[in-house]
């Protein structure tokens, strides 16, 4: 695949991001190990009732083919340290929207090591964030959040996710991914924060953190 993008996490954020990127002509590698559950359907926009129980990457691959006529690569696995470099090497950009903080740090570390732009996204409750990163040129995920939390305060299972929020944030992630893969750094290192309750949007340019592995 030429100038392909890796979509890590094909859920509430990965689905709408893929729906933007695929018809824009970006070849996709979809990486996820989960299966579609009925509770996913209100926000994971590539899936339908008949997909319940099917691997998300396979259901997404089918949907992208039927809706847009594009062939995406489906890789059913969790992203873990043992496979991350092999799965992400060669990508033009990584779109990371997983529900696991450890995977966010892993994707960030691999993106930095391989020099691949990455867009991180997350949603909990009514709140979502997007952070596009150009390795070596902008603040990275570890510049913003230094390390894994030591408690469960950030577990999305506590607060759930307001369905429409993920489509807003997923589209924003795709928009940033399209820019990053063209070398456009206008939003790189800007932490976008969207509050769906008040419909407020803020974007803050962040400096690279001294002591971060990404900073010389």
């Amino acid at each position: 695949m030429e100038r392909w993008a890796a979509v890590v996490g094909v859920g509430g954020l990965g689905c709408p991001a893929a729906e933007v990127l695929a018809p824009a002509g970006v070849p996709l590698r979809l990486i996820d190990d989960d299966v579609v559950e009925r509770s996913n359907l209100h926000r994971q926009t590539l899936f339908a009732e008949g997909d319940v129980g099917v691997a998300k990457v396979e259901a997404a691959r089918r949907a992208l083919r039927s809706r847009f006529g594009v062939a995406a690569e489906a890789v059913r696995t969790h992203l873990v340290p043992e496979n991350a470099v092999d799965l992400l090497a060669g990508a033009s950009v990584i779109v990371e929207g997983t529900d696991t903080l450890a995977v966010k740090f892993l994707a960030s570390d691999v993106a930095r090591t391989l020099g691949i732009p990455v867009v991180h996204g997350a949603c909990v409750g009514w709140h979502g964030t997007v952070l596009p990163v150009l390795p070596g040129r902008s603040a990275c995920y570890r510049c913003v959040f230094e390390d894994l939390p030591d408690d469960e305060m950030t577990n999305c299972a506590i607060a759930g996710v307001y369905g429409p929020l993920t489509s807003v944030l997923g589209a924003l992630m795709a928009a940033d991914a399209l820019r990053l893969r063209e070398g456009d750094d206008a939003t790189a290192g800007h932490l976008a924060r969207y509050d769906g309750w008040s419909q407020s949007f803020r974007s803050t340019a962040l400096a690279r953190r001294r002591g971060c592995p990404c900073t010389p």
Partner: protein
Amino acid sequence: MAITVRVPTQLRTLTGGREEVSADGATVGAVIDAIEAAHPGLKDRLLDAKGIRRFINLYLNDEDVRFLDGLGTAVKEGDSLTVVPAIAGG
């Protein structure tokens, strides 16, 4: 002086569900002490023995306080302090 503190979803159980609370203080640290007095337990979610927890960001208006004077950053009437934790979910 009173400023507005914006509380993320995950911590609103400590503020009675309120997204915004008002607190007095001359510095970010003093504001956090004030909100702790009104909403016990909140300070521990933001700070540890070394200062601001590593997976928490505090923005005074749109500035990350780590790049200002940290907990000693002066605040003024009408400012807003936004708590942004690392989150996962989608």
